[in-house]
């Protein structure tokens, strides 16, 4: 049923990229992984393509994170480069700083809370989230409530603790 996957592709691709982005924090990589997930779906023809895609994507992101951990030394080397002082695009710095704060806040959540939140944000229903995470459907609301609260709290705490103050 490649037509079905084509349909899922149209509807789900941006959400899958977004979902992956919040795991790998690299837009290009997220797109690559999303495309690879769809390419695999074409081979496997899963019954529930949408759910299957998110499971596969989550696994790929996990592998990616392990790989990234291996390359961490590289990253540290890169980060030790002096940053351009006034100069670089201010709006970029703002966007980057904001993204970094949100990322740090997301990382404060438990993996399960974070997964539920990201899946909901990717457009999944409570039923789908329950199937994906193994949580009872009745627990999804509570999980999401906790995840949202922790996200906001961690973000605010990070912002107060950080040196940067959000603009306007």
């Amino acid at each position, binding site marked *: 049923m490649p037509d079905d996957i084509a349909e899922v592709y149209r509807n789900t691709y941006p959400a899958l990229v977004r979902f992956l982005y919040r795991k790998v924090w690299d*837009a290009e990589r997220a797109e690559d992984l999303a495309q*690879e997930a769809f*390419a695999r779906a074409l081979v496997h023809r899963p019954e529930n393509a949408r759910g299957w895609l998110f499971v596969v994507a989550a696994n790929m992101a996990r592998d990616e994170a392990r790989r990234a951990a291996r390359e961490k030394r590289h990253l540290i080397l*890169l980060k030790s480069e002096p940053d351009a002082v006034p100069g670089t695009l201010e709006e970029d710095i703002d966007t980057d700083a904001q993204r970094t704060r*949100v990322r740090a806040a997301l990382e404060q959540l438990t993996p399960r809370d974070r997964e539920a939140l990201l899946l909901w944000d990717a457009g999944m229903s409570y039923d789908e989230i329950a199937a994906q995470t193994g949580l009872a459907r009745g627990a999804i609301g509570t999980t999401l409530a906790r995840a949202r*609260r922790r*996200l906001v709290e961690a973000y605010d705490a990070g912002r107060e603790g950080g040196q940067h103050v959000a603009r306007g």
Partner: protein
Amino acid sequence: MSHVDEGTLHAYLDGELPSAERAALEAHLAACATCRASLDEERALLERATTLLGSARPVERPAPPFDQLQRTPKPSPWRVRRAYAWAASIALALGLGYYLRNPRLAPGPAATPATVDQPVVVAADRAASERVSTREEKRAAPVRLRQRAADSLMPASADERARVALQRQTDSARQAPAIGVVASAPSAQADSVAPATTEALRARDSTAYAREPLRLEEVVVTGRAATNAAAAAPAPQNRLAATAWPIISRSAARSLLGTDPVGLPGLTTRRIRRSPGTDGTVVVEQAVDSSTVIQIIQRPAGTNALYDSAAKGYLNRSAERERADRLARFVGRLRVEITGPLSVDSLNRLLEQVAPLP
């Protein structure tokens, strides 16, 4: 009914509460001010969390066509390729360096033309693993890159052509940096990998080739064929030093270029630099991922018109044209080139996506 828990409120706000529960909840809310207040709080929390998440989303780009996906079930396209390109480039630099460190050992007519046709990467890999093996193998890599240009210039034996190609390449290394890996290696230590830098820069070759002994300050492996016309225009100096170029603000870049700087809209811009000269060249450095930075070199198209027109004449030869065209392109009124520690294929792919930065 006791007060409603936050999970139920979130499920309600998410529109995921089963209808029976929803009716019961709404009845309770109508009668309970405390729970109405809770509902407002949870709604504010939910909206706040959604906004935060929304501020950490990638720039949305249209999905590639579905049929393209079907054609290319690609496993991790460029991680692999990049690793491969790396290995090949370093091996090439090694092989070249070994060859160049003693020019008097330059090959005599004994070398067979067959070695000339060895594939670049095969030769490079061998050069890496058997550094002390025959020179012919090491030489084979640059020879193929250069062969076509050499053909057009030198009706000599394959071997002579090879040597000329190498010399020309050496000269161009002094005049202008090259795309590919640049190993900063004094000739005596040219076979040490250590100084290889990741800066990939581009080259313009010159037809002038000196007869002086090959004494390299930089061993440059180019991914681009020679252009005999390019001699007409000296390439901008010191591209190699682009990482030492002054960092400038975006507005300074805009005034230098007369238009918005270009780059890959989806990538983070790390910094912008300008050429220390007066050619108006600007380099935008962007992070492809956490460990890879590319440079997008741009300048107003008119700045080096001599080179451009000369190059176009040359580029009418179609085989060369394809390669050269794809490493530089015009975006608006800017001539844009791209470099980075990626394979030429990847760089081309990125170059296609270059657009004015938002």
